[in-house]
């Protein structure tokens, strides 16, 4: 699986959404599942998937599907 597919799969599974909705408009709190509970679950899933550990600041700033891709670059993950 490519990194893009893995990244999308985390969103699909964490927020129970279809891959079609994953675009620039998919942002924090845009679906009920992406609340503060869902956010930490999604971060944990990303960390497991890519075997990384994100800094608190990046978790805070991880505000959308698109921003998340930028954040992962910092940890050597190109999506």
């Amino acid at each position: 699986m490519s990194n893009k597919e893995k990244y999308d799969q985390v969103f699909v599974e964490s927020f129970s959404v279809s891959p079609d909705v994953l675009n620039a408009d998919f942002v924090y709190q845009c679906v009920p599942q992406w609340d503060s509970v869902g956010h930490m679950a999604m971060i944990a899933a990303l960390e497991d998937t890519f075997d990384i550990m994100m800094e608190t600041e990046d978790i805070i700033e991880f505000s959308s599907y698109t921003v998340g891709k930028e954040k992962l670059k910092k940890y050597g993950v190109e999506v």
Partner: protein
Amino acid sequence: MPESHDPVPVTDWPAFGLAGPDKRERILAELRRLTRHHRDACPPYRAIVDKLGFPTDTLDTLEDVPFLPVRLFKRHRLLSVPDGDVVKTMTSSGTSGQSRSQIVLDKTTSALQVKVLSRIMAEVIGPKRLPMLVIDGRATVADRYRFSARTAGILGFSMFGRDVAYALNDDMTLNREGTRAFLDKHAGQDILVFGFTFIVWRHLIRALEEAGESLPLEGGILIHGGGWKQLLAQAVAPDAFRARVAGVTGMTRVHNYYGMVEQTGSIFMECGEGRLHASAWSEIVIRDPGTFAPLPPGESGLVQLLSVLPHSYPGHSLLSEDVGHILGRDDCPCGRAGTTLRIEGRLEHAEIRGCSDTYPP
């Protein structure tokens, strides 16, 4: 957000490095700005402070900053930004029959809260996220539609942890096997241990003592807050609390924190000397419960909390129903600058406020 007169953004202030007049001037400048902003943007705030007879223009000292009773937020949804800018509403945990506070946050305020909490936390746990043991049951956070202050607190602090594990079963008994397995896995590392004071006491410390057991938590850094709630009759002094924690867990790094949902982010953190510290972003005034006159250090009175974070609601200066006293200023043996305080309890006959030491991620 209206421009700040301070060239340094507040989030760049040294967390516990501002002392004396420097601290007072910086925080006073921000509080003046916030008072003006809330007077302009929140008509009910303006009406209340005018009615209470606070000075309108000159705020020469921190004691001059108008303050609202914290319980006002239980009766009124006060906001200083357009309704469309509200991204989150936080509520305090009202137990049945009590009203809940409603605190509205816009993006700016929410981001400030998170950044400032993260600066204060770095002071006690370091810059890295640590393996985290929550002294609570997973069920407390599982039901996100019954979002309580406890849930919000656990989730908020979870940002500073990783590989989060829960020490209690859902019936609040200690999960001995699970906890031991977690501690084995992270043996030799620092561990962030987080819980609410009365739960840590009842379901970890007392539970271990009663069973004659101990846990190898020497690497743990305990962050606890929220007070004693319904266990007030069992409350123990901070020194005794630390001694008993060390007795059954070996944990010597223990930090109580004091804060309220109405001023999330700028919490007061206990240092190794057992003193609660105001950070750069907060300050305390103690007031006589009868006359509301400010009291000198050492004298007990009502705790007024000042915070530079509330922008979307007029909560930058609040009179709590907590009683406490100032221990000193810039003189704590731990070396941190700023005001130190001790909380003694709640004003008698006050409506008991629910747990409010919460924090939104």
